[in-house]
């Protein structure tokens, strides 16, 4: 178990530039590095692993500066996106490779291989070759091979990218369980939100070589620090703010947004109102919908609006409902499928939108 810290880590690879990355991952934490394709996630973990040497900045494992240490001296387990299982070796020899390099005795090797194959449920695969394994099996073997040498830090580069959805859900649970069991610090690269929420103790968002936001998943998803993070984490209701009028009781503020078509009452009791906010962000799962009756009279200050359904998209357990008010403000809500029958959701249907003032995040 090790604390990972980077200080002003800067690396240039051709046109790509990873700029002044300051990352802090606690010992025993499962940290997920999220970002769009080409953001620099892989370069960052490869730099922590020692595959690239930075132009400036440092990498610390606990308090030890490992910036100039070679990959093999860092005590890091690495699982690349394609798993890179040695194709000319059986599963058993793949897992035992690192132990044999360290000249472990035959009994030690056999014992550790058994321990890991039991933990990862791959004991039936020992004599098979990687080419004959499924994506999920390869992922487990690669994980067992990396864990065999008891690394201080485990780096996973999109480990679940090559498996189907149901396997991914199962493997997420198992990955978390293994991390708890071994206590190893994990840095896990992903671009999948469900995967991230399932395994992450903390999250970092990387974009164009910049680390934009790190924190607990609920902080990053519900209290993003930039418009990009809000958009990337699919907070679909983002409105440009025109004016903010603090209320005399200092517990609420009235925000005029979306070219003054939208008036929102925002809870400021926790003192999170930024000095000059530019955007109001409301996550779609925080938008409440209910049937609208013709005689409904909605007071805008209550954060309630009447809108018409424009599109309903099935997202599995949730429905994504896109609506628009008469003055053109677009709202997106995520509604559990179980509630959709009560709402009679269909195009043109009139619905009431309700927002809790505490669910509005200003940035």
């Amino acid at each position, binding site marked *: 178990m090790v604390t990972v810290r980077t200080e002003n880590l800067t690396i240039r690879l051709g046109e790509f530039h990873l700029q002044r990355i300051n990352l802090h991952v606690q010992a025993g934490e499962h940290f997920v590095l999220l970002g769009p394709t080409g953001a620099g996630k892989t370069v960052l973990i490869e730099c922590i692993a020692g595959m690239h040497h930075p132009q400036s900045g440092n990498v610390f494992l606990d308090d030890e500066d490992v910036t100039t240490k070679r*990959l*093999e001296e860092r005590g890091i387990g690495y699982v690349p996106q*394609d798993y*890179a299982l040695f194709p000319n070796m059986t599963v058993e020899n793949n897992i035992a490779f690192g132990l044999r390099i360290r000249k472990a005795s035959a009994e030690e090797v056999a014992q550790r291989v058994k321990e890991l194959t039991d933990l990862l449920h791959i004991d039936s695969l020992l004599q098979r070759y990687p080419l004959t394994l499924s994506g999920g099996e390869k992922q487990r073997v690669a994980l067992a091979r990396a864990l065999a040498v008891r690394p201080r830090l485990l780096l996973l580069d999109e480990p679940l990218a090559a498996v189907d959805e149901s396997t991914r859900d199962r493997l997420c649970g198992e990955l978390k369980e293994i991390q708890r069991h071994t206590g190893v610090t994990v840095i896990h690269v992903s671009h999948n939100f469900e995967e991230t929420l399932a395994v992450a103790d903390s999250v970092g968002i990387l974009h164009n070589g910049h680390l934009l936001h790190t924190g607990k998943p609920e902080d990053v998803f519900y209290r993003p620090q930039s418009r990009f993070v809000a958009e990337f984490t699919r907070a679909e209701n983002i409105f440009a703010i025109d004016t903010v009028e603090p209320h005399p009781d200092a517990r609420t503020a009235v925000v005029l947004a979306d070219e003054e078509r939208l008036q929102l009452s925002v809870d400021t009791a926790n003192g999170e109102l930024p000095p000059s906010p530019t955007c109001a962000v409301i996550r779609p799962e925080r938008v409440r919908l209910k049937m609208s009756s013709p005689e409904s009279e909605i007071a805008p200050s209550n954060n309630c609006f009447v809108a018409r359904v424009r599109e309903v998209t099935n997202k599995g357990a949730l429905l994504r409902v896109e609506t628009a008010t008469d003055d053109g403000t677009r709202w997106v809500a995520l509604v559990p499928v179980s509630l959709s029958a009560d709402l009679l959701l269909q195009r043109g249907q009139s619905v009431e939108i309700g927002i809790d003032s505490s669910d509005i995040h200003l940035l």
Partner: protein
Amino acid sequence: MIAGISLLVFFNQTALGVKLNDLLDVVYTRRGIVVAQFFVASAFCIRALKATFDQINPRFEMVARSLGCGPFRAFWSVSMPLAKTGLMAGWIMTWARAMGEFAPIMVFAGATPFHTAVLPVTAFLNLSSGHIEAAVGVTVLMIVLAGLTLSIFKKLGGQGYLW
């Protein structure tokens, strides 16, 4: 032919070449056959080696290093076993290419029967002097060798990158 002339000029007309020839005695000798074959066929060998190593995922070595191997051991333990059949196939095809060389050897090493006349040169000399049976005999021998070489190459999983 051009390669043979270039070698002759190098070993006879340049200071370095003359010194090397004084040391190794390669012009119009059996050693010259090896030099001419190496000069022409080494490019094929390098191309075959490059094609083999290009096919190996560089992450194999990175993973091996994360498991504790130094750079050389990672190369020797992981990349070399994976490249083995490709290297064998490459070397066999390069040897076959060298065995069929004609003009550079005749120009640089000469065409003395039973001394510097390699099989293709022997076939040509016999044909030129009217010894058709001998020429055909050497030709058949070369065809059999070519067939064997191709069979071994295919058995080793050759990729056909030499033609």
